């Protein structure tokens, strides 16, 4: 892990890093200057060769996404930073924004230049009010230093950037819902295709990247795509921020290379499981929508996109939620079902009705009112949601339920049969 902590969190612990003066002492905007001397195509090639994949959860290659923006199109192009961090367990982007906002701004200027965008927006979840203040102050500083605006540093490049606060809707983390929200509408997802690269904000070509993705860009420009691609493992290159929360001794956001063993992440970085490794019950590896892993899997699993998919789960946003043996898995999943019911936008019937069913059935099992056949009913409801909705929120609601029943069916059955938890 020698070169981890050199990409995203390199300067995060430096006092005053949120100010332009301190950030520039650490080299901020030097990478941008370099980038503005390159062609957009060269930058995209560098990011492609880095193998950088979107850090918001889907893992789509960033350089490839940028290359989808049509070149000879007279419409304005937009760059939107998805800072609507809201998946339970996820809180990494918040640290990047509040402690190193200029890193994000620099990444956005480079990305904007690469795709010929002259206007960027940072869509930040509304609850992050103080973080939005920090970003706005950093944006104002960047404007005053001609790092944003017209003719940046006399290089003939224009790029404007604005911070836009959301208002408390998890679904707005879905990129097309985010665009609707940014246009002043209800944050309901759009049918795709057309994809935002062609029809995005205001019907124009739009790139949407997560905060963490954009923050990785300056280092890639500085040290090269080849250097970045050597970090991590094949197909999952680079470093990743993991938010480790729940029953660990040292919860926190940790930057490590992708492909690190989960056990090492928990033991060597997050201080180990409360009560020792033997006390581990399960780990949700990538945020609330990703299916839970059992201890046998946690012994050997690597934190890469491929390894977690192979284990029937997902890397997601890298949000590792650790549960020790005191946890009632039924109650944990019931809590998540309540969340998805609350956050369904109501547009698609399978999701609107299905998330309500899931929450209701999970709640009655958890409170000892479970009926015979409820577990199969849950699976049936899940199969009627999955793949049948406009966006992935329905899938996100179903996956943790299916995953928990796969591994902990006996606990669900005990709940139904005895009307109480086997953990109590």
């Amino acid at each position, binding site marked *: 892990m020698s070169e981890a902590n050199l990409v995203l969190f390199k300067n995060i612990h430096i006092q005053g890093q949120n100010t332009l003066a301190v950030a520039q002492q650490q080299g901020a905007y030097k990478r941008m200057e370099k980038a503005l001397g390159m062609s957009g195509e060269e930058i995209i090639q560098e990011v492609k060769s880095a193998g950088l994949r979107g850090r918001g959860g889907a893992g789509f290659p960033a350089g490839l996404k940028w290359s989808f923006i049509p070149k000879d199109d007279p419409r304005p192009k937009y760059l939107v930073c998805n800072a609507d961090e809201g998946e*339970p367990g996820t809180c990494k982007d918040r640290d990047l924004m509040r402690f190193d906002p200029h890193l994000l701004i620099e990444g956005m200027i480079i990305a904007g230049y690469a795709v010929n965008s002259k206007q960027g927006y940072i869509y930040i979840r509304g609850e992050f009010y103080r973080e939005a203040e920090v970003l706005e102050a950093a944006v104002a500083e960047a404007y005053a230093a001609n790092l944003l605006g017209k003719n940046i540093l006399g290089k003939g490049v224009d790029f404007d950037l*604005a911070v*836009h606060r959301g208002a408390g809707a998890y679904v707005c983390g879905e990129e097309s819902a985010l665009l609707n929200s940014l*246009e*002043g509408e209800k944050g309901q997802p759009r049918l795709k295709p057309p994809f935002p690269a062609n029809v995005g904000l*205001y019907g124009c070509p739009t790139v949407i990247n997560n905060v963490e993705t954009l923050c990785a860009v300056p280092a890639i420009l500085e040290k090269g795509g080849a250097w970045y691609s050597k970090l991590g493992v094949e197909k999952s290159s680079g470093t990743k921020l993991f938010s480790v929360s729940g029953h660990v001794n040292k919860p926190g956001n940790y930057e490590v290379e992708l492909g690190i063993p989960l056990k090492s992440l928990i033991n060597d970085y997050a201080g180990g499981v409360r009560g020792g490794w033997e006390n581990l019950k399960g780990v949700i590896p990538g945020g609330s929508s990703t299916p839970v892993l059992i201890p046998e899997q946690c012994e050997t699993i690597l934190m890469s996109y491929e390894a977690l998919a192979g284990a029937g789960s997902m890397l997601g946003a890298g949000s590792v939620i650790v*549960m020790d043996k005191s946890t009632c898995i039924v109650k944990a999943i019931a809590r998540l079902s309540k969340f998805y019911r609350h956050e369904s936008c109501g547009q698609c019937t399978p999701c609107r009705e299905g998330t309500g069913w899931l929450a209701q059935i999970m709640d009655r099992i958890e409170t000892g009112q479970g009926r015979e056949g409820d577990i199969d009913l849950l699976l049936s409801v899940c199969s009627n949601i999955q793949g049948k909705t406009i966006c992935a929120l329905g899938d996100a609601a179903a996956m943790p339920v299916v995953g928990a029943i796969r591994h902990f069916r006996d606990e669900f059955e005990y709940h139904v049969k005895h009307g109480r938890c086997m953990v109590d």
Partner: protein
Amino acid sequence: MSEIAPAAKPAFSQEALKKVETIYNRYPADKRQSALLPVLDLAQREFGGWLSRASMDYVAELMGLAPIRVYEVATFYTMYNLKPVGKHHVQVCTNISCWLCGSDGIGEAVKQRLEIEYGQTTEDGNFTLSEVECLGACVNAPMFQINDDYYENLTPETAVKIIDELANKA
């Protein structure tokens, strides 16, 4: 939609109107509706921490939008309060990471201290207590938000202490 009407017809101060102009400037001139979320947030701050029907109508008129466009947005997002809230809005996160780390105890301690349940406001109008979904501070769980500020790594004792300090200031 709330039945409670404010005492006077709402209108932005000159200062707030200047802020509205700043907000408009972030978006293309012909895409003014993009400013709706931030302008509603401003209205909530200007008009006592919540959005009455009259406040929404005012925003609609100000922005040249049909009132329904404003209502549907105001009712979609959880951060717009459609009924009055206390001076301090205590929002306790009880989602998974906070729950694993003891948010039940935080909620109970605050309920006991304020003598109200989730969804209620103290009689003096000083505090409203809400249960909310993930606030994105999971590695510093358990936590709550009061107005614009996060309070993290709470214990029942520190949670009550924070409430006491605000109560004494009020």
